């Protein structure tokens, strides 16, 4: 069965899909397998529905980072790993919020995590989101897709060429260069966004 038609994935398939930038179905699968567990745990530990959802989303993104940066130990379960990230994330957030200090201590005691994994908070203010959207709208869909594969998913040029239908890796490489230059030009044209500060946040 083709990958995009499957409803259930092995850990290996999930990791492969993330590395290939084919994540839509994987996200559905991860939601189905891990969200409920994380949500219940956070609700049991003084969190709200919204907080649980936020933590879950950040945990999935953090898992993406681990995979894309080749830091994910593939001998471990994806589900358990995401849950561990979420649990760590929630304990840290609860600490920051000074929320139920006793509860947090209890959590730490009871749920000491086997994985030393951290949640990368992906919270972004609305202005920043809007600015990114505005900049990328000027770039065009094709360039956006290409840069996403090369920068976010760190895919090789031959893989990008295959995925996007370019005749060779060299073509993909040239287009990638041009797209990046174009994006830089757009950024330079929009200095009012104070984009430089983003990289230091």
């Amino acid at each position: 069965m083709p990958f995009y038609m499957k409803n259930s994935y092995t850990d290996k398939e999930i990791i492969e899909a993330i590395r290939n930038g084919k994540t839509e179905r994987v996200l559905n699968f991860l939601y189905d397998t891990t969200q409920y567990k994380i949500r219940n745990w956070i609700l049991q530990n003084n969190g709200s529905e919204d907080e649980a959802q936020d933590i879950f989303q950040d945990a999935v993104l953090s898992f993406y980072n681990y995979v894309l940066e080749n830091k994910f130990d593939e001998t471990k379960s994806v589900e358990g790993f995401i849950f561990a990230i979420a649990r760590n994330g929630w304990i840290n957030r609860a600490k920051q919020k000074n929320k139920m200090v006793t509860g947090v201590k209890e959590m730490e005691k009871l749920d000491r995590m086997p994985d030393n994994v951290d949640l990368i908070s992906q919270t972004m203010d609305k202005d920043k989101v809007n600015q990114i959207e505005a900049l990328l709208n000027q770039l065009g869909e094709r360039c956006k897709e290409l840069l996403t594969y090369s920068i976010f998913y760190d895919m090789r040029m031959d893989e990008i060429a295959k995925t996007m239908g370019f005749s060779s890796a060299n073509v993909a490489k040239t287009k990638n260069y041009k797209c990046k230059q174009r994006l830089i030009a757009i950024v330079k044209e929009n200095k009012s966004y104070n984009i430089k500060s983003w990289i230091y946040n």
Partner: protein
Amino acid sequence: MDVQDYILIDEFLKGNLSGEQLEEFNHRVTSDEVFKEALEYQQIANTIIINQERIKIKSQLQLIHQQNKSKTITTKKWWGLGVGLTFVVIILTVWILNRVKNHNVLDNLKVIEETAEILKINNESQSVRTFNEEKVEVTPKLTKVIEEPPTKKDTVINIIEVNSKNDENNVIEKALIKDQSTKDSNKVKDLKVIEDKTKLTDKTKIEDPCLGVNQITPKFELIKPCFGGERGSIHFENNTTKTVTFSEFSIDGGQTYVSSFTELKIDRGNYEIEALTATGCKSKKDKLVVNYADCNFVIQPKQNKYWELSIPESDEWPITLEIRNARTGVLIYQKNISDIEQIIWQGVDQNNNQLDMGNYVYWFKSKNKGLFAKGQITIVN
């Protein structure tokens, strides 16, 4: 910035530089402002792309969450609706059962009213009696209390006490009645008086309300005219009075038709027909014979005027059209027709040879029903 610098920065951002290359890179960043700016912008470009993908993934997760939530809500709603509907069904069932039960009780009372064509009031003379704790004048009276056409027969009812305050206008407000057929007595009912009788008799038998209808033995015969024409009409007659009018009738005990025989698709054949009154009284059943009249046609093939005929209705296919020489009876044309269609006969034989002027007979046959339509075709110049 040239391509080489772009590639170098790209490799640096991907973490692909070796220790020596990294040292050289750092040196350039500190010494070359243009290079430093190029690095910054490339970092910004990467940040933008990474952030937009993160936003996208988060939005996708959010969307999945919302869809799931609405699915859950919908499921809950359906559950709620299901439970609600179940309750409604239960309540309705209980209500209907109750109604049926009550209706049966009411029906008993109704029967008492409807069938009381002739009532016997006990033979006490006019006197003052207590009725419903009220002193009333009791006037023994034979009273017809029919509000609806009677349907039951042989029911005898005794009115044993009548509260009649306004005797002149024949208004009986209350009556204690006794239905002897059901032994259901002592029911107090409001009765409306329609007709008075002058004499009292004991246990008078009620006349059959459908008697008039039952006595009718109508005779029907319907001839369906030529194909495609009007289908004729149907009449109900009483052999004695000739005045019986029915608004409804039923064929072979099936669907009831309302005086619209002309619209009735009825095939040739024999049927049982009965007339129905609005109150459900049925006449005696009688045979209805439906046939086709002989239909004759004239065609002028040389003037391009052919026989264009609609196939008669049939519930049996195929049917066969045969055309024979009227004088000799020799079969000259035959066609099996498998469904309703328009037939055009151009006055030719089976081999498509033009026939001579003259008379020809045709008939439609089916395997089981045999001949069911026939007539003559005349070929002229």
